[in-house]
């Protein structure tokens, strides 16, 4: 089944790439809207400069999210046609609602925002960015509704050889969504907070454009501090939810082979998948039970018991996700989060003491924290999606049953290589542009129109 493996790789590559841009869009749209609102309320031109500067970086990121998002919509039909047939009745609805209620909103009002600076009133213009922010985050909601069904199906019945929706309200009030959605939105705010803080720190280090970046870093740090705390809180609630609703993912995350009560929290393990045990392990006794149940006792089911139960229910087969991957992605995500919380607290402390500007060490720490939200977001999704293996919809359809049957491995290879090469090239271009804008800085308000127009210009076809 080479096709399944290739289709999975393609999904992983295109999704993780898409999600490098999405979280920043979710968070930065809010922060840009906040900045523009401050401009409208105070009339202070500095806030307008800020809005335009961060808005420019936002746009490069936004467009990358949009174009890679189109691929996301269509490859369910391309590579996962059998999944689409089996699940279309439930999965198609949130996707269509996403387009109708969110994509139209973001794209239309972003067009108004970009081109409407002189045509709309100040308040109206700021309102456009708020609508973009609302639309982006609403689209995250719908996509998580769809994803949550795959993680934890509710409100359906198996009929006519497929899963059919029986209760729409249950689908959108799926408890899984309400764990994932706040966590994702806050992850977006963390990303935006770190992004704004890190780039502002760069300018403070260079002592350039201080009037713009001192207030910027204040906004960035505040956002970073609050959202890292909240993202941890929601992550914790989600883990507690997993303990009862997706015990296999929980056990995989912890590399817990045998059920235990109280269960220890493993700090580091060496997984021996063949012999179904860990060849090395250090952990904190009882800590996992505490994380799951808020008390130092309570059983956490182990992989071996869950595997046996799954075989009994669904027939023979491997129902265990990749343990080492689940274990380490979870820890990398959590450690990245802790790191960001720590530097946010440090940065905020020095800012509060008015000693941030003169402290290049802290500023550099903030600057070099820029990769962490991206690491956390990516590992988070690899854990979420990898952790439900071998299921595409937990308990209902396996990944191997969801793949398109009439698509050849050659076709998948071509599209996978095509997208990967294109995505790589575009990443280089986007990074080039963001870097260029950062080096130029915000005060460069000269029209982007080319100086070329003054001289006679070559036509395009020679």
């Amino acid at each position, binding site marked *: 089944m080479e096709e399944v493996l290739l289709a999975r790789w393609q999904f992983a590559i295109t999704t993780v790439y898409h999600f490098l841009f999405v979280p920043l869009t979710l968070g930065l749209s809010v922060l840009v809207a906040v900045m523009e609102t401050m401009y409208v309320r105070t009339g202070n031109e500095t806030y307008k400069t800020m809005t335009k500067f961060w808005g420019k970086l936002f746009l490069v990121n936004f467009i990358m999210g949009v*174009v890679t998002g189109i691929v996301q919509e269509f490859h369910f*039909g391309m590579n996962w046609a059998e999944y689409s047939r089996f699940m279309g009745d439930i999965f198609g609805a949130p996707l269509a609602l996403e387009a109708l209620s969110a994509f139209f909103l973001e794209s239309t009002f972003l067009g108004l925002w970009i081109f*409407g600076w002189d045509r709309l009133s100040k308040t109206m213009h700021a309102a456009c960015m708020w609508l973009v922010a609302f639309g982006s985050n609403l689209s995250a909601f719908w996509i998580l509704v769809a994803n949550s069904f795959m993680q934890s199906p509710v409100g359906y019945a198996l*009929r006519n050889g497929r899963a059919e929706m029986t209760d729409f309200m249950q689908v959108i009030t799926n408890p899984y969504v309400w764990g994932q959605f706040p966590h994702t939105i806050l992850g977006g705010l963390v990303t935006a907070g770190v992004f704004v803080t890190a780039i502002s720190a760069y300018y403070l280090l260079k002592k350039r454009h201080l009037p713009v970046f001192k207030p910027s870093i204040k906004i960035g740090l505040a956002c970073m501090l609050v959202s890292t705390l909240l993202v941890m809180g929601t992550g914790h609630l989600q883990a507690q939810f997993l303990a009862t609703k997706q015990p296999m993912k929980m056990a995989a995350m912890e590399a817990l082979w045998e059920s235990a009560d109280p269960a220890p929290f493993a700090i580091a393990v060496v997984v021996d998948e063949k012999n179904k045990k860990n060849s090395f392990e250090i952990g904190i006794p009882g800590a996992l039970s505490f994380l799951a149940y808020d008390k130092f006792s309570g059983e956490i089911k182990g992989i071996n018991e869950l595997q046996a139960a799954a075989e009994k229910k669904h027939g023979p087969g491997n129902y265990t996700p990749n343990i080492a991957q689940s274990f380490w992605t979870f820890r990398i995500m959590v450690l990245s989060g802790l790191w960001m919380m720590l530097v946010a607290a440090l940065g905020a402390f020095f800012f509060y003491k008015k000693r941030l500007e003169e402290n290049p060490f802290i500023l550099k720490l903030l600057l070099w924290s820029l990769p962490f939200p991206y690491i956390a977001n990516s590992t988070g999704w690899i854990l979420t999606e990898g952790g439900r293996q071998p299921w595409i919809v937990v308990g209902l359809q396996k990944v191997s049953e969801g793949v398109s049957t009439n698509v050849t491995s050659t076709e998948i290879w071509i599209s996978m290589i095509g997208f990967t090469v294109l995505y790589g090239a575009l990443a280089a271009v986007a990074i080039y542009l963001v870097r260029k804008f950062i080096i130029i800085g915000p005060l460069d308000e000269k029209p982007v129109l080319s100086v*070329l127009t003054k001289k006679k210009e070559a036509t395009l076809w020679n």
Partner: protein
Amino acid sequence: MELNILWFILVGVLFTGFFFLEGFDYGVGMLLPFIGRNDVERRIVINTIGPFWDGNEVWMITAGGALFAAFPHVYATMFSGFYMALFLMLVALILRGVAIEFRSKDESSKWRSTWDWMIFIGSTLPALLWGVAVTNLIQGIPINSKMQYAGTFFDLLSPYTLVGGVAFLLVFLFHGALFLTLRVEGELIERSRKAAVKIGLLAALVFLSLVGLTYTNTDLFKSALASSALWGAVAVFVAGYVLLWLKRFGWAFAMSGLAIAFTTIAFFSGLFPRIMVSSINPAWSLTIHNAASSAYTLKIMSFAALALVPIVLAYQGWTYWVFRKRVTAKELEY
């Protein structure tokens, strides 16, 4: 009304809106290297669609989402069957989107002309491919008893579908040139007009061949509604061309848009109640019944669509009102 029919109509409406709106911005994209002779002019040409193109593209995304929600088997069969074509289209759309956004972000003329060509390719390829796709649907493609596409990429290319692709491309070009006459100033208007005059004639010729081939290659003319819509499309297209000669650009644009709308209506009503025609066995065609979601899902989606579509139309319409003035070199945001 039966909800399956309502959703067939809604999907048709979404595709009509998509071809009407994105038709002119594909057209403008294709014309970009030829109408805009220097950097400022090219920026003006891009800015005529600047505030709209992304919103227009959402019509396609929504049409795709609506197919998924209402007719999941069509979504699955079509996109796995048209795999390579769709891959090419996605690459083109990615290049087009980033090109519009990135082209003015660097001063180098090489940078800009590269992205301008990406806009050109990114507009040409989807226009062509959509024409090929739509004509394939009505002509029939090898769909087997298991609702699976049983052909290859090259089975999608027949003389009929290639004429369909070229016809769509030319009509979109004409539509785009007329749109430009409404949105630019001075010398550019004249250039757009001349382009429209040339393209219009060619487009009319190819479109007529498409109508002829549709008569021999498909059963579209069995439907009275479909055949009258298709002849209506021919009539309004010619009317648009005459109005162009009379320099009534606004009316000419409305007519080219109507021609696109009538064509889409013709194809959809020719299909009804099928959505994808099987060339192997008519009984294996995907229809509004055997390919649809459950009645419950259709009901939920109907409420949502009836509530949301008017709101979307209102604010998208408002956008066109806000940017009703011609694009001038003096106020280019980019």
